[in-house]
């Protein structure tokens, strides 16, 4: 299958701790993407998490501004502390920002109706996505996801890095109850049968391709999806 890919789960930049020496330059990422037919990607800069969202957001906006294959995700903090610049949705579109992410466990706040109620309601109405990392320990866990979606059931939510072990027991109830929840594929691909069975039960429309690069290999997600026992239509 000669397939082109749109990867929704890549970070760029150098992490505070790089014990495994995994960080690569933006140019190397783009070169690798090109080799593997990954035409577009949604990216964020690791400094959004490791330094400060304001520093990282601005770095990201600058980095993707002249690269047509990249779209960006900004990181938010509770607006009450006035630490981050707020953009209008028109400005976000101009800057190729297509979503928000949050690192409450790292940045010490609670992602909830109390801290973000009106804002999340607006995102819900606009169908503007949030990207929630469920595995890293820096963002949210499944209990948080269940809680947020109980308050904002129509929120467009992409669950990234869904978990190293098969997480069907966590994710399938969410897919069943909340129509705008999507799963990023990288760790579904890791877990034997998870992608195929999720497609069978909920449809390929609920899964978006992701690699988790540079923490994980592009090649792994691509090879698994390419040879998954689902229809070609479901793959593309």
């Amino acid at each position, binding site marked *: 299958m000669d397939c082109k890919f749109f990867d929704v789960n890549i970070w760029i930049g150098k992490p505070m701790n790089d014990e495994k020496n995994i960080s690569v330059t933006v140019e190397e990422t783009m070169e690798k993407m090109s080799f593997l037919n990954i035409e577009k990607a949604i990216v964020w800069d690791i400094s959004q998490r490791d330094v400060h969202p304001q520093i990282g957001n601005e770095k990201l906006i600058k980095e993707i501004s002249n690269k047509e294959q990249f779209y960006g995700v900004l990181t938010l903090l509770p607006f009450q502390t006035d630490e981050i610049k707020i953009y209008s949705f028109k400005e976000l579109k101009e800057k190729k920002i297509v979503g928000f992410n949050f690192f409450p466990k790292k940045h010490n706040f609670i992602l909830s109706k109390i801290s973000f109620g009106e804002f999340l309601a607006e995102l819900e109405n606009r169908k503007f996505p949030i990207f929630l990392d469920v595995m890293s320990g820096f963002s949210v866990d499944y209990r948080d996801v269940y809680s947020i979606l109980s308050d904002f059931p129509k929120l467009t939510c992409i669950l990234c890095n869904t978990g190293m072990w098969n997480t069907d027991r966590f994710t399938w109830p969410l897919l069943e109850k909340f129509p705008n929840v999507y799963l990023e594929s990288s760790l579904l691909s890791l*877990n034997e049968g*998870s992608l195929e069975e999720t497609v069978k039960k909920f449809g390929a429309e609920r899964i978006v391709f992701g690699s988790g*690069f540079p923490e*994980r*290999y592009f*090649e792994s997600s691509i090879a698994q999806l390419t*040879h998954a026992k689902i229809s070609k239509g479901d793959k593309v």
Partner: protein
Amino acid sequence: MNKLWEEFLKNGKIESFPVIDVHCHMGFFYGSHLPYIEPEKMIERMESVGVKLCVFAHHYSLFNPDIGNKVVIEIVKKYPDKFRGYCSINPHYQNNIKNDINSYDKLKDVYVGFKLLPDYHRVPLSNKRYQIVFEYAEENKSIILTHTWGGSFYNGENEVEKILKKYRKLKLILGHSLHNCWDKAIEIVKNYENVYLELCAVIDERGVLEKFIEKIGSDRILYGTDFPWFNHHYYIASLFGAGLSENEIKKILYLNAFYLLKKYT
């Protein structure tokens, strides 16, 4: 390497050599949903990706002493070309261990060795309850695959070294390669000649395999996936992602395990 990658991506398998997975399971697992747990479904998946042989410890053998290893014997006898078994050891049931070892000699067409799971059974590797197994395996040149995890009280680096110092000829596969204690895993391979690193839960992250290859080469690294936990296409593609040469990939996916298991298969 690019040619082999292109072949793998196009066909879903490598035609020039088969794959041996030395770390597999089977059956339901309490901790997560595993969709493809039956041997027939596993065989279908293995054939789709060029996996010739899976060496497995059945979940029920590891977790249900009432069932024990009889389920492994049944499955290997039914599918001898596809599966070989580990005789699972639960240190809480010494009578079962004695019975298993007494019958082991008659089941050499079934077993290649023993599987230990100290983190789950909560008995450290160096505990005397495992002694009979280590002694038997060393004397009979049987393999032991043990779950290992960096820093673990039960099967971390300290426990592994205690065993290796005591049983110098033991062929020991470090399942998960002392996860997250990668430098120590490398040091152990350098210091003990009969130790192998196994890649399950290793190659789902970039950076570790690259380090192993740089420091110890590919001769003592074995392909393992916890299948049917993890997906073969995903894992095999990781070797390409890590930039390994064709020769290194062949050794890890096939040759190292082939020579290690030759006596049994």
